[in-house]
């Protein structure tokens, strides 16, 4: 389980996250939603330890009964507890898919990066889980956006961590890949008992694939709960400055958010 307690982060003098508290249980997908600039990516980066935290605690009890402060770990130790799928990241195009996924084994390798048969077996399994084993020999630069995102997920899975963070992984994908990617993530969380925190732009993807949703606005958590509890017309229209209607999804038992237009917002 991942606990975030009273986390505050500033860039220089500008406060980006204020007193954020959130927990992600093992075996659940928590979607982090909120307008542009709300601090979603900052939260993911802060949890992964790449930007300094002003105050607050980030800890986890996945390894032992006592909780471990993730911020005090070395990069290698931290990379054994949590893996990150970055926002449709720049990947060096010249590496093959196989080489890329094996990089995920870094926290278990020596400085030379020598891989064992076990590392290779885990990398192969990770590629299988995202249905990309047949891409192994291809260079990353030759892949489509959807394929690249799956490779990034496989690389994160190869880290064999109990916690998975994803930063808007679907933002550059077409409809088919958005759905299949989130289906994979959700299945992995439930089957392998991973604690998954995923920042998402698309509210309806969040509604459909997240067990719980956290709404982040201006660096503060405004609401957390099931999709039904958070994706309400009141909360969403206030957060996004846009009138919305929420109806029941025609074939999945989740809310469906339908945006109005900005002109009617001015009338309100």
């Amino acid at each position: 389980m991942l606990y975030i307690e009273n986390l505050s982060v500033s860039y220089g003098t500008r406060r980006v996250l204020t007193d954020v508290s959130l927990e992600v249980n093992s075996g659940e997908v928590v979607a982090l939603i909120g307008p542009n600039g709300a601090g979603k990516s900052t939260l993911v980066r802060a949890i992964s330890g790449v930007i300094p935290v002003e105050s607050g605690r980030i800890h986890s009890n996945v390894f032992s009964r006592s909780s471990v402060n993730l911020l005090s770990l070395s990069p290698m130790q931290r990379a054994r507890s949590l893996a990150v799928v970055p926002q449709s990241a720049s990947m060096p195009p010249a590496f093959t898919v196989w080489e890329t996924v094996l990089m995920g084994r870094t926290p278990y390798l020596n400085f030379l990066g020598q891989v064992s048969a076990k590392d290779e077996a885990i990398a192969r399994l990770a590629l299988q889980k995202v249905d990309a084993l047949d891409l192994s020999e291809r260079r990353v630069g030759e892949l489509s956006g959807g394929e690249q995102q799956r490779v990034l997920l496989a690389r994160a899975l190869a880290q064999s961590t109990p916690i998975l963070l994803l930063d808007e992984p679907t933002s550059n994908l077409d409809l088919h890949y958005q759905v299949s990617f989130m289906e994979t993530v959700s299945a992995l969380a439930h089957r392998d008992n991973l604690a998954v925190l995923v920042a998402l732009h698309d509210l309806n993807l969040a509604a459909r694939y997240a067990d719980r949703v956290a709404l982040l606005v201006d660096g503060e958590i405004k609401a957390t709960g099931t999709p039904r509890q958070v994706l309400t017309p009141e909360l969403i229209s206030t957060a996004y400055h846009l009138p919305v209607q929420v109806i029941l999804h025609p074939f999945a038992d989740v809310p469906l958010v339908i945006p109005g237009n900005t002109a009617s917002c001015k009338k309100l």
Partner: protein
Amino acid sequence: MRRFSPYLLALAFLLIAILLSVAIGSVFIPPADLGRILIGWLNRATFSEPLKTFAFILTDIRLPRTALVLLTGAALGGSGAAYQGLFRNPLADPYLIGVASGAGLGAVLAMSVKWPYSFWGLMAVPVAAFIGSLLTVFLVYALAHVGKTIPTTNLILAGVAFGSFATALTTYLMLRSTGELHRAITWLNGGSSQAGWGPVLTVLPYLAIGLGNLLLSGHALNLLQYGDEQAQQMGLPVTRARTLILMAASLATAAAVSFSGIIGFIGLIVPHVMRLWFGADYRRLLPLSLIGGAGALLLADVIARSVMAPQELPVGIVTALVGVPFFLWVLRRAKNQGYW
């Protein structure tokens, strides 16, 4: 090219380059005689003419020169690959980002102090060159970086600008000094014409440390290709790895420059050719760039010695005149491969 073992190909190339470098010069030593001398050495035999002269030329002139050029080429190729990986920039090489010029300035400053021409006097030059190269790296980095990234244009502008400044200052110092002028000019034209084994033995510890560390850094460089943030998320202690690689590459560059002058293009071209032919994995790319750099500079040196014999061309002219067209040809053939 992927059908053969990359290492075998590179080592075969290096071996041919060594043989040419040993055989060709103002006096041509036929390969058969090379073999006879080698067997003679193993049997501790005494030679009669012409083998006696050939053996003297080999031990006192050809072999030390070949060794120094080989080490210099290895240092330039290896550090070039490391700089390209470190800055994630295909244009970074010891020459273009000013490190070589900074090392040269340091070396000439040390030469202008009248050290005795002894082992320790020789040692001071690489140390000064190393300090010069490190200061250059930090200066260029400080000038070029925007946040945590280094845009190509900034890097090249800062590197070329500081490189020109350092070169101008070097020239001024050389013209002003009198006593050591000869030594400095010899150095600028490719100091490998310095005779004897002294420079080789002096440069060896610096290169062993510098290149040794680079050879161990392949995996770290692979991870750094994803950017600092992703590299750290995958478990790399980014700051420590970056500092280590930077120091190692600068040490190797400085050692090379302090005895062989400023030789461009080897550090740029060799890693690219190796990357095009054998892939982008730095664990393979670094050793291959080392071997390839050694072979390429040996060939350039052979050409420099023989084209206008008995006069010698500065080897840097040859690396540019021959290396650049070759590089452009390779690059053209590899179009659209997205190898970088």
